[in-house]
C-alpha cells in the first residue's frame, strides 16, 4: 500500500506527458491553412503592433524586410498568460473568478516544480539539502498554500458562474464535473495543509522521493496518513485528466495565437511555402454540390482551374 501513491502519481504523470505531447503533435502537424490572421499581431515590428498595423501598410511590402519583434510578442504573451489580460478586458465578471483559479494553478504548479527541483538537488548535492529544506519550509506554505486557496475559491466561483442564467444552457455536465473535481482535489489538499502538513514537509518529502525514485512510505497513521495520500492521488489524477479534456486549452491557446491569429507570414514567389501549397492543391476533394462535383479524384487544383459556366 505504501507504494500506491507513487505508482498512481507516476502513471498519472505519464498520462499527462503523453497527452500533452499528443496534443502538441496534433496541432503542430495540421496542414497549412489559408491565412486567417487577426490584428493586432503582437510580433509586428516598427511600432505597428501598438495600433494593430501590419507590414501590408508598406508600399511594395514584398520588397522590404519584415520587421518581426520577439520582444513585442513576449510583451503580450507574458501578461496574457500570467494575468489573463484578454478576459480582464472583455469579461471582467468572469475574470474575477477565472484569474484566481488560473493563478492558483500556477502557484501550485510552481510549488510542485520547486519541490521536484529541491528533491533532485538534495539527492545530488546532499550538502545543500538543509538549505533547500529551509526554503521549502518557508516559501512553499506561502506560495503553495496561497495557490490552493486561490484555486479553490476560483473553482467555486467558476462553478457558480456556470450555473448563472447566462451560462447555464451552454454548460455540459462535464463542465460542472471538471470544476467539482478541482474543488475536491484542491479542498482535500488544503485540508491536508491546514490540518496535517502545515510546513509541507510530508508533501515535499513525497515529491522528493518521487523525483529520486525512492518509494518510501509516507509518515503518519489514520487521517494523518490518509489525507495526504488522498490529496496526492487526487492532484495526480487531476493533472492526468486535464489534457484529456477541453481544458487542454493551455496547449491549444498557444497554437490558436501563433499558428492562426498571428500567422501573417507571406508566401513569397519562389519561397519555401509554395512547394507545400502545390502539394495541398493536389489533394482530392469529395464536396458533392453541383458546382463542384468532387468525386474523390478531382483535386483542389482541378476544381479551382476548371471552367465553370453554371
Amino acid at each position: 500500500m505504501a507504494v500506491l501513491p507513487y505508482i498512481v502519481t507516476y502513471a498519472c504523470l505519464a498520462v499527462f506527458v503523453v497527452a500533452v505531447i499528443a496534443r502538441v503533435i496534433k496541432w503542430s502537424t495540421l496542414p497549412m491553412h489559408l491565412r486567417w490572421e487577426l490584428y493586432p499581431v503582437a510580433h509586428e515590428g516598427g511600432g505597428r503592433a501598438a495600433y494593430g498595423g501590419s507590414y501590408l501598410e508598406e508600399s511594395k511590402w514584398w520588397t522590404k524586410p519584415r520587421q518581426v519583434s520577439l520582444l513585442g510578442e513576449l510583451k503580450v504573451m507574458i501578461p496574457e498568460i500570467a494575468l489573463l489580460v484578454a478576459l480582464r478586458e472583455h469579461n471582467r465578471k468572469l475574470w474575477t473568478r477565472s484569474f484566481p483559479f488560473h493563478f492558483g494553478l500556477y502557484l501550485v504548479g510552481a510549488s510542485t516544480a520547486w519541490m521536484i527541483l529541491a528533491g533532485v538537488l538534495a539527492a545530488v548535492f546532499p550538502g545543500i539539502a538543509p538549505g533547500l529544506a529551509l526554503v521549502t519550509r518557508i516559501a512553499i506554505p506561502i506560495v503553495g498554500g496561497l495557490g490552493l486557496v486561490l484555486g479553490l475559491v476560483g473553482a467555486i466561483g467558476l462553478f457558480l458562474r456556470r450555473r448563472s442564467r447566462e451560462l447555464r444552457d451552454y454548460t455540459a455536465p462535464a463542465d460542472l464535473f471538471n470544476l467539482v473535481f478541482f474543488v475536491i482535489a484542491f479542498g482535500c489538499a488544503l485540508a491536508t495543509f491546514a490540518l496535517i502538513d502545515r510546513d509541507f514537509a510530508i508533501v515535499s518529502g513525497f515529491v522528493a522521493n518521487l523525483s529520486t525514485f525512492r518509494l518510501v512510505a509516507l509518515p503518519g497513521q489514520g487521517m494523518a496518513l490518509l489525507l495526504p495520500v488522498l490529496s496526492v492521488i487526487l492532484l495526480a489524477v487531476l493533472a492526468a485528466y486535464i489534457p484529456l479534456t477541453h481544458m487542454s486549452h493551455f496547449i491549444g491557446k498557444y497554437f490558436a495565437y501563433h499558428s492562426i491569429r498571428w500567422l501573417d507570414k507571406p508566401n513569397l514567389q519562389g519561397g519555401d511555402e509554395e512547394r507545400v501549397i502545390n502539394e495541398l492543391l493536389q489533394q482530392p476533394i469529395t464536396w458533392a454540390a453541383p458546382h463542384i462535383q468532387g468525386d474523390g479524384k478531382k483535386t483542389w487544383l482541378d476544381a479551382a482551374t476548371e471552367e465553370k459556366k453554371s
Partner: protein
Amino acid sequence: MKEPRSLKDIAKTPGQPLAHIESIEQIPLPPPFDRIDEEPPIRPLSDAAREKYVVLDDTVAVSIQKPASKEEEDRLVQGFLSGLEKLMRREDNWTFLAPFEMSMEHCAHCQTCSEACHIYEESGHNELYRPLYRSEIVRRIYFKYIKKASPAVHGDIDLNWEVVARLIELSYRCNVCRRCAQTCPIGVDNALLSREIRKIASQEMGIAPRELHEDGSVLQLKAGSSTGMTPMVVKDNIEFIDEDTSERTGIEIETPWDIEGADILLIHNAGEIMAWPENPGAFATIFEAAGLSWTLSSEIAAYDAINYGVWYDDVQFARVAVKHAQAAKKLGVKRIVLGECGHAHKALTVIADKILTGDLNIPRESSMTVLLDIVRSGKVKFDPSRNDFPVTLHDPCNMVRLMGIVAPQREILKAILPPGRFREMAPHGVENYCCGGGSGFAIMSGHNFADWRHHLTGRRKFRQILEAFQDEPMDREHPKYVCAPCSNCKGQIRDILAYYDAFEKAGIYYGGLVELMVNAMVDSQPGFIDWEWH
C-alpha cells in the same frame, strides 16, 4: 421580444419563428433619430414567404424551401452531417482545418464574445443572435452525431431537418466581422464557424443565397462580373466615366486597358463602376496625375475585384482568385492593386496567399498604400481647404481588423483635410464595428432582409456615425462626410442613410477616400464631390 430560451429550442416549434424583434424595444439612436416611436418598423415577412421557406426569425436570407417529403427532409440532415464530417478531413478542408478544429474543441462557452457582437447588442441581447448560439449548436451536432461522444461531455442537442435549415439561415445572421474572435481569451473564432456552416451548405448541399452564388460568383466566372457587365460593356462604361470625370475635373483622362508590362493592374469592385462611377474616375485622375504605369484588364472576372467565395465557399473563392492572378500574369504586370473594396483586399492579398504559387503568385497591394505614396511623393498637390467639412472614417473590417491596414488612410486624410475636420468613430481601427453589410449582407435584400439588417446589423455603425458628428449642427445645411474606402461598406452605409433619410435630416453624406483626394486636388476644378447626389 421573442427569443429562444435554450439551445434545444432550435429543434422545437416547427414552422414557427424562434425570435422576433420589435423596433420599439431597441435602444434609441442618438439625435436627431432618437425618437424610437418614429422609426420605421421591420416590415413583416410576406405570408407567401412564410409558407414556402424555412423561417428562423423576422426575415429570410437563404430562402431554403421547406422539404416536400420525408426523403427531402432526410436529405437535408444527411447532407449536413456529410458536409460537417468533410470539414474535419484534411483533404476536403485543409484550407481551414486548423482554425476550424481549434474553434470546435476549445471554446470555454464563457460568452465573452457576445458583448463584442453588434448584432447581439443591437437586438437587445436576443439569445438567437449570440455568436455562441449557432456555434454551440454545430459543436453539439458534431460531437453527438459525428463523433458519437456522450452528450454529458459536450452537451446535448436534437437533430432534425428544421435544425439544419435554421442553422444555415442562422449562419447568415452573422457579418463574419470577427470582432467576437478578437475578444476571445482562448483564440476561438465563432465567426469562422458561421462561415464553415455556410460552406457545408454551399459546397456539400448546394444551398447558398442567390445574391452570393448564382448572381454572384457564378455570374462573375461566367460573364466577367457579378454586375453582369461583359468586357465590352465595362469598357463602354469606363469610357463614359472618363468623359464625365474629365468634364468635372477639367483634367483629360483616358483609362488604360490591357497594357502589357504595366507596373500596376488596378482591379476595382465593379459595383463602383455601376453605382459610384466617381470612384474609378477619381482613381484614374489621381493615377494619371501621379504618372503611374497602370492598367485595367478586360479579361473575364479580372475587371471585378469581388470574390464572394470568401463569404461562403472555398472552391468558388479559389476559382475567382485564380482568374484574377491569371489576368495579371497574362499582362505581365508587376503588381496587382486592389481598389476600394475591403473583402477583395483580404481575398486576394491575404487568403489567396496560400493558393497562388509560381507565376500566379504576383504581388498584391492595397490602393491605400499606393495612394499614400502619391501623397508623400508630392507629385499631386492638394488644397485641404476644399474639404472644409466634417469627415469621419469607417474602417472596413476586412482591410483593418483582418489585414492591419490602419494608418495609411489616416495619413492621407490628414494631408487632404483642414485641421480639426477629422474625427474618429468610437471605437475605431482594429476594434471598429462592421458597417452591417459584411459577409455579403450589403448585396442581400431579398424578402425583407434589408429591413432586418438596417435594424440589427447596420444600426451600430449608424449609431457610431451619428455619435461622431454630435458636435456639429445636425441638419442638411451642414454637410458631413462618412469616408468609407470599401464598396460593400459604402453600399450598406448608403442604404442605412437612405433608410433614415439621414442626408435630408442631418446632412450626412458618404463616399470613398479617393473622391476626397480629387476633391482637394489643386489641378482639378473645385467641387468634385457632388453633395446633391445621395
